[in-house]
């Protein structure tokens, strides 16, 4: 036992400790990679806890849930309560409210606080005063609101402000987190405040233990109107989770790319270790150390980096997660579902997966150099320069492998999604990255050979020397170039994807938004939340002299085919409807004239994609007491994630006779005074309504878009940082290794600044190469992202677009950072004494 340990300490640990800067840079790169994966994992976990999951933690121990689009008639409750079975029914009104002056939408719940069941569900949550409805409009609030009993709180619900008295603070029951920011009131009050008199959003059912849940579910099913759904508690948050899965996968895969960058650096570090300890390895082998023994020693080095890096990465990840939660939560709210960012939970599962990934990827990355170390023959160790020869020989074989990998990557993009996830496309991205890494040595060698003359003339002898050195040490530099290329490619591909998406959305907004003003209730927005405007408002707007037409849109969150979707009632008349753009090949005029005449639907492209719906398909949607069938007339471009189904407003009103609109579009008469119109609109609508002009709404939408992608930009930045750090570490290693060479240069007359320039040129050339290769790879990857991954995950049609400014800025930054990474090694070399250096070893 002591033998191997001693060897590990002497051969591996001691050199690492002697080079603290390089070792810690590698360590840090691994840590950043692992940290990013952990942070994204933690943050998405915390941020994607939807409103429904938080509601469920408030339901107590209910087993089934009854709900319906547009709510249930409360009279149903009487019938249910009389059933001669020991059920317990707890009616609920579910909505959102935001505290006056704050944008965040909070779950607003109406519960039967007198009914024994309602009270019981809250045992330990509401305090004793729970059932005292004595103060004016009492509300119980989550502790995160920071209010105290007796406080008055102004809440915006839909478009109206209401004042409540805080009757108590919701206690945190063990193991529950959902009520931290909820607001609970008695059910009658909640109905009134949300304009849902006579209606319930859901009924919680506690079922008897005597039979299975499925038995009771079927039994209840028979008692309910067709339009009601009865499903196990948790089904709605399960749907939310399913919808969020694509989003989580996307982020996760992006974070894995940072880990891949880290893997390249481990590979590089171990390779350097192997190269520099050839002599020692030779000695160990000569003294009887087996091949396996040597290989294991280097794997142990990787393991050391993996373990230490992962441990550090966990800490980093935890810290970064705190920052990332907000960013991820933004995206989730804007695109998917009202979520309630939970505190970041550091579980053992997260620790295990973080450490597991870190260690696994380190070992895998170190396999090749470790095997190479084990192949070193005792005699071979004495010879110098052979490793470059080996690398050169292998490059031919690598080319073949790279070709196969590229072909496979291309083939994988043609495969369909697996369970809604573009798994093959992700695999294709990874393959393309490795294939590129494989061709990098050849690329460097060719670049060095072909560019030599030109570079020498343009930049002088130092640049030429730098280029030669790059070309001569392909084995080593190619790994660095691969790491940097991967990071650049990631930035470029995501940059192109986001830029294309942004441009597509911008163009789409231009055509989709045709009205002059848009009104919706104030308070935070989320894709699944549809607060309503008071029904009189649009009528009043129609009477304004400047107004030509008013369009009402009413949206409901429904579930379709096991996924959440949005059902909207729209008005397509004279002016309206011009904004809808159908997919190619659909007869717009015919569709729009037929649409308002019956049970017809238009669906958004993502919805069509998710549910394999085409024009002519029939959607069955339970509405207003029965299952209704809507024939799909057309599929239109849509860049929301919510899965849109649009039906004519009059048709929807027939089934759900609630005239309130979720938003209103106002068209002015030609030549109407828009400023005066705005004043008038503002006067009629009051403070609970937000009024946007066309331009404001567009800008707002783009701002939301940018905000939702801030997490992607953050991910890229980290990946770049990891790569740059690797470059710095590796440059330092090579310069130290080549100190005799530099000393020799000094002896033959090179000035200190010239040596410095050589090193900086090397860094610059590396940066240039990586930028070039990264741009090419990134552009290829962006095609996969846009046309395969996006299409399969979300169903959006995105037009390709070069975000030139963004790319230029990113590449410049990478280039500058790479050159800067050469500064420290350059200084180290220029400071050393050529006499000492040349006598060393």
């Amino acid at each position, binding site marked *: 036992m002591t033998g191997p340990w001693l060897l590990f300490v002497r051969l591996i640990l001691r050199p690492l400790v002697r080079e603290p800067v390089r070792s810690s840079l590698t360590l840090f790169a691994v840590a950043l990679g692992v940290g990013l994966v952990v942070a994204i994992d933690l943050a998405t976990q915390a941020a994607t806890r939807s409103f429904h999951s938080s509601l469920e933690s408030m339901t107590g121990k209910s087993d089934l849930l009854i709900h319906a689009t547009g709510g249930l008639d409360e*009279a149903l409750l009487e019938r249910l309560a009389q059933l*001669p079975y020991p059920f317990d029914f707890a009616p609920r009104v579910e909505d959102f409210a935001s505290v006056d002056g704050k944008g965040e939408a909070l779950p607003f719940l109406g519960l039967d606080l*007198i*009914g024994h069941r309602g009270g019981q569900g809250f045992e330990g949550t509401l305090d004793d005063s729970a059932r005292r409805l*004595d103060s004016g409009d009492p509300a119980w609030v989550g502790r995160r609101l920071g209010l105290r009993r007796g406080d008055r709180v102004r809440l915006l619900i839909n478009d109206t402000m209401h004042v409540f008295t805080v009757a108590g603070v919701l206690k945190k029951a063990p193991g529950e987190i959902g009520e931290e920011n909820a607001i609970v009131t008695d059910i009658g009050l909640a109905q*009134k405040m949300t304009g849902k008199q006579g209606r319930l959003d859901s009924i919680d059912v506690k079922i008897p233990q005597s039979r299975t849940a499925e038995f009771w579910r079927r039994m209840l099913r028979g008692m309910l109107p067709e339009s009601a759904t009865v499903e196990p508690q948790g089904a709605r948050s399960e749907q939310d989770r399913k919808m969020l899965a694509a989003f989580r996968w996307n982020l996760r895969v992006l974070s894995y790319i940072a880990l891949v960058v880290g893997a390249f650096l481990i590979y590089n570090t171990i390779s350097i270790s192997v190269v520099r300890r050839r002599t020692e390895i030779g000695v160990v082998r000569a003294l009887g150390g087996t091949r396996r023994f040597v290989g294991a020693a280097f794997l142990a080095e990787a393991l050391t980096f993996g373990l230490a890096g992962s441990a550090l990465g966990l800490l980093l990840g935890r810290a970064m997660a705190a920052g990332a939660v907000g960013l991820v939560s933004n995206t989730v709210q804007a695109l998917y579902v009202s979520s309630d960012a939970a505190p970041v939970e550091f579980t053992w599962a997260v620790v295990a997966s973080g450490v597991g990934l870190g260690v696994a990827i380190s070992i895998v990355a170190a396999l090749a150099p470790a095997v190479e170390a084990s192949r070193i023959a005792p005699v071979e160790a004495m010879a110098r320069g052979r490793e470059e020869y080996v690398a050169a020989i292998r490059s031919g074989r690598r080319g073949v492998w790279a070709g196969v990998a590229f072909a496979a990557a291309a083939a994988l993009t043609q495969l369909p999604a697996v369970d809604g996830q573009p798994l093959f496309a992700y695999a294709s991205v990874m393959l393309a990255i490795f294939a590129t890494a494989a061709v990098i040595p050849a690329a460097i060698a060719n670049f060095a050979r072909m560019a030599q003359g030109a570079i020498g003339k343009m930049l002088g002898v130092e640049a030429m020397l730098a280029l030669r050195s790059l070309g001569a040490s392909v084995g080593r530099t190619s790994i660095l170039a691969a790491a940097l290329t991967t990071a650049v490619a990631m930035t470029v591909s995501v940059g192109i994807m986001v830029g294309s998406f942004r441009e597509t959305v911008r163009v789409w907004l231009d055509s989709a938004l045709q009205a002059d003003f848009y009104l919706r209730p104030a308070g935070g927005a989320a894709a699944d939340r549809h607060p309503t405007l008071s029904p009189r408002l649009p009528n009043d707007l129609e009477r304004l002299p400047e107004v030509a037409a008013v369009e009402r849109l009413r949206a409901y969150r429904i579930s379709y085919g096991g996924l959440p979707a949005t059902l909207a009632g729209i008005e397509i008349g004279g002016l309206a409807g011009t904004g809808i753009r159908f997919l190619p090949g659909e007869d717009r005029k015919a569709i729009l004239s037929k649409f308002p005449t019956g049970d017809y639907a238009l669906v958004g492209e993502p919805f069509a994609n998710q549910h394999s719906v085409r024009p002519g398909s029939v959607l069955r949607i339970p509405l207003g007491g029965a299952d209704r069938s809507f024939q799909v007339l057309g599929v239109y471009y849509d860049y929301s994630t919510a899965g849109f189904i649009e039906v004519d407003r009059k048709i929807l009103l027939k089934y759900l006779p609630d005239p309130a609109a979720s938003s209103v579009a106002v068209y002015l008469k030609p030549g109407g005074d828009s400023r005066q119109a705005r004043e008038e609109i503002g006067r009629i609508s009051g403070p609970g309504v937000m009024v946007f002009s066309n331009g404001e709404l567009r800008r707002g939408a783009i701002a939301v878009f940018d905000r939702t992608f801030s997490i992607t930009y953050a991910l890229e930045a980290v990946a770049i940082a990891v790569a740059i750090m690797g470059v710095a570490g590796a440059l330092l290693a090579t310069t130290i290794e080549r100190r005799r060479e530099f000393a020799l240069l000094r002896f033959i007359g090179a000035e200190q600044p010239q040596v410095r320039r050589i090193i900086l040129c090397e860094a610059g050339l590396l940066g240039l190469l990586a930028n070039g290769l990264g741009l090419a790879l990134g552009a290829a990857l962006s095609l996969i992202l846009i046309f395969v991954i996006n299409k399969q995950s979300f169903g959006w049609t995105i037009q390709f677009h070069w975000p030139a400014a963004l790319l230029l800025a990113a590449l410049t930054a990478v280039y500058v950072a790479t050159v800067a990474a050469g500064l420290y090694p350059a200084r180290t070399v220029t400071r050393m004494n050529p006499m000492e250096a040349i006598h060393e070893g």
Partner: protein
Amino acid sequence: MRARAGVCLIVAATVACGQQWQLALPGYHYEFPRDHFSHSDYQTEWWYYTGNLRAADGRRFGFELTFFREGVRLTKQQAAESDATWRPDQVYVAHLALSDLDGREFYHTERLNRAGPGLAGSSLKERRYWNGNWQARWTSLNSGEQQLQAVCERFTLRLKLRPEKPLTIHGREGVSQKGPQAGEASHYISFTRLAAEGQLEGWNGRSYSLKGLAWMDHEFFSQASGQALAGWDWFAVQLNNNEELMLYRLRRKSGERSPYSSGTFVDAAGRTRFLSASDFVLAPGTTWQSAASGARYPVEWKISIPCLGIELWERTGFRDQELFSKESVTPTYWEGAVTYEGHEQSQAVKGVGYLEMTGYAGLRNGAQR
């Protein structure tokens, strides 16, 4: 006199209830069937069913099913603000208890609702009072025949009740006086002998066909018991010579018996005789201490009514019939099936009935304030 649900305290009435409620005053004109159902002008009302039943195999059961209604006077603001359906101006509590006397198991549960969209209520039109799927439905308003249904996790109880005697109105001049003040009283109606027949389903996996005798009380009043009372002991006695007795002893906080304790004797022909406090003596005997509440209940009593020549010893074969629940919204009390044995005018008599004892568990449960 019955265990008064503390619901008034649950939905705290914001105004002193007093003046706005109708008081139970002498000279009340009873009108049936109207008076079998709700009196929303009175603050508190209850319909109480208890009984001793026997299964075909001889197994003995006691049951209690009670419907309480508590009126809540809302402030004008509250009344205006809350939607009519869910306005918490009537709160309904119901208690259900089963005493498996031979299986020595006592189970009780309660529920609480406001009227809501038909969750609970009392309606002459529908001939019923109910709380969820617990209900008493009058199948005949003339004969007074009723059907009880109570569904809970442990069992379902369905009983048909047929009055064997006409109803009894307790007290004098239509009021059962509980204190010195006018209105410190209740209107108190009983069916003292109801033939009961029905099914108990799902009790520990078995079902039983039951037969026996039940007793029904209906009482409505506003602020009936004075603040000086600590509790009461209430007896329902159904003798095998076709006579019944209702007796209650009101206990003051000072420990002595209130002079407003009283009772009613119903003879075999259904004629009633009012018994004032001085007409009877209730002497507590052996006590039993509840492990749950810590309260000590005198579970054995000696009843003496010299003017009727009656001496009875009350016993119960099963002492643990306390309705205790930590989370309960109503006070803890003891209410159980009991038997009586003794003599009347030197004739040996025996009988069954129910005993209720309140105010022994202190105010630990916080429902009363």
